[in-house]
């Protein structure tokens, strides 16, 4: 068993020529991945979610080697929200329910769904067709869809990229607050140092597929 206290532990992980991480520990809590476009942030999230497998090395999640973990079971626990999450044809309600259908779980009632829409500040009826939603509204619906499923770990790929600063701040703040309150962990990709300094327990900076820095929140606040 390796690093059972770590949320993820990566050893000698490479993915094609995109990523090369000799050693990295991601702890429970809120972790932010910072870095320029093409630095390998999304690839790292996909590796953690097991939607791709490393071409070299090993990844452990809470002490279990991902190679030995069934992928679907892992993805239901470590849920990924991609940057441009796809909407399924139908209504807002259909999109909130579909995750439960995919996981073969009982769907939540409409009150729970409405409550979740309020939390992500999406003022839309459940019967609204998703075709009528703007980019930012779709992103909030995608967030609500993921949060309703309540996994142990959220992997969020730029969850606020289509939101204005105020909404992003409020929505990410709520998401982080809820995760902390329920003991969930978040690994979040962002370009924003402000988001990192405000919400992260730990920040990992990537450049050209390599980890160049790992900082605790206090280091970031101190501007180091």
């Amino acid at each position, binding site marked *: 068993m390796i690093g059972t206290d770590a949320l993820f532990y990566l050893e000698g992980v490479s993915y094609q020529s995109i990523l090369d991480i000799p050693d990295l520990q991601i702890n429970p809590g809120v972790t932010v991945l910072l870095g320029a476009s093409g630095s390998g942030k999304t690839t790292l999230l996909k590796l953690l979610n097991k939607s791709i497998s490393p071409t070299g090395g090993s990844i452990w999640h809470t002490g279990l080697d991902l190679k030995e973990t069934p992928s679907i079971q892992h993805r239901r626990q470590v849920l990924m929200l991609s940057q441009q999450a796809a909407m399924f044809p139908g209504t807002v309600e259909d999109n909130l329910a579909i995750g439960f*259908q995919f996981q073969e779980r009982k769907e939540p009632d409409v009150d729970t769904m409405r409550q979740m829409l309020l939390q992500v500040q999406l003022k839309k009826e459940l019967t609204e067709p998703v075709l009528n939603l703007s980019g930012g509204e779709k992103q909030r619906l995608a967030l609500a869809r993921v949060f309703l499923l309540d996994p142990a770990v959220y992997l969020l790929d730029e969850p606020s990229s289509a939101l204005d600063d105020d909404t992003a701040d409020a929505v990410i703040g709520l998401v982080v607050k809820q995760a902390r309150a329920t003991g969930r962990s978040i690994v979040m990709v962002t370009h924003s140092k402000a988001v990192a300094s405000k919400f992260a327990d730990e920040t990992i900076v990537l450049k050209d597929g390599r980890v160049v820095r790992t900082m605790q929140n206090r280091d970031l606040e101190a501007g180091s």
Partner: protein
Amino acid sequence: MSGAVQLSVWQVIFSYLFVLLVLAIVRKRGIRREREILLASVRMSVQLVLTGYALTFIFANPSPWVTLLIIAIMEGFAIFTVFKKFRGKLSGRLKKTIAGAMLAGTLSCIFYFLLVVVQIDPWYDPQYFIPIAGMLVGNSMTGISLGVKSLVEGMSLQRHLVEEALNLGATPRLASREIVNSTFDAAIMPTINAMLGMGVISLPGMMTGQILSGTVPTTAVMYQIAIMLGILGSVALTVILLLHFGYKTFFNHDDQFFPAGCRKHCEK
């Protein structure tokens, strides 16, 4: 009911007047298709004459081996035609699935139809076996072609939905459900539409042929009903087998998705 009017060689030659007519029209209008029309007419005639002689010989000398050989050639040709149509777009696993679906789907229906429905004796009687197998294999080939096209295009065009479904914890079966359902529709609808219009919009070729050769229409109709149901069964079974195993060829052992099909590099 009088017997069939036998066509002499001269009578058939008169029918080539249609070809001359079409050639004259396209030449006059400057449509440069004379070569294709001539080639298609000659090739069709030669192929059918040769087939006629071959079938006459086979019918006169029935043998289980010859019947099985002809079925094998039909199946091989049908499978090869599908591969050729989608050259470069099919993974090795999908090719194996197509071949397996064609063989299992058509052969089970052919044997059921001939041995249980028509009850031919001997079981390899080429006069029944060859034309009926031809119809079932031909229609199933069309169905599976439409199915493969829809499946390959669906996985590519709707890749974002499949990926999203996997992200939300779906199994590959659930993530591909919509694509698989619409593929079944695309493959089976032409057969269903043909059945809906049959006898009203169109008189099917087999029935027309039987009537022209002197069979009582009610007998021809009974055959046509049975063969259409046989075709429906064969197409549906072939496509269901394709879909049941085919969608899996887009995922590897780790349930990771490959929109262009899981090829050698994705296997571990």
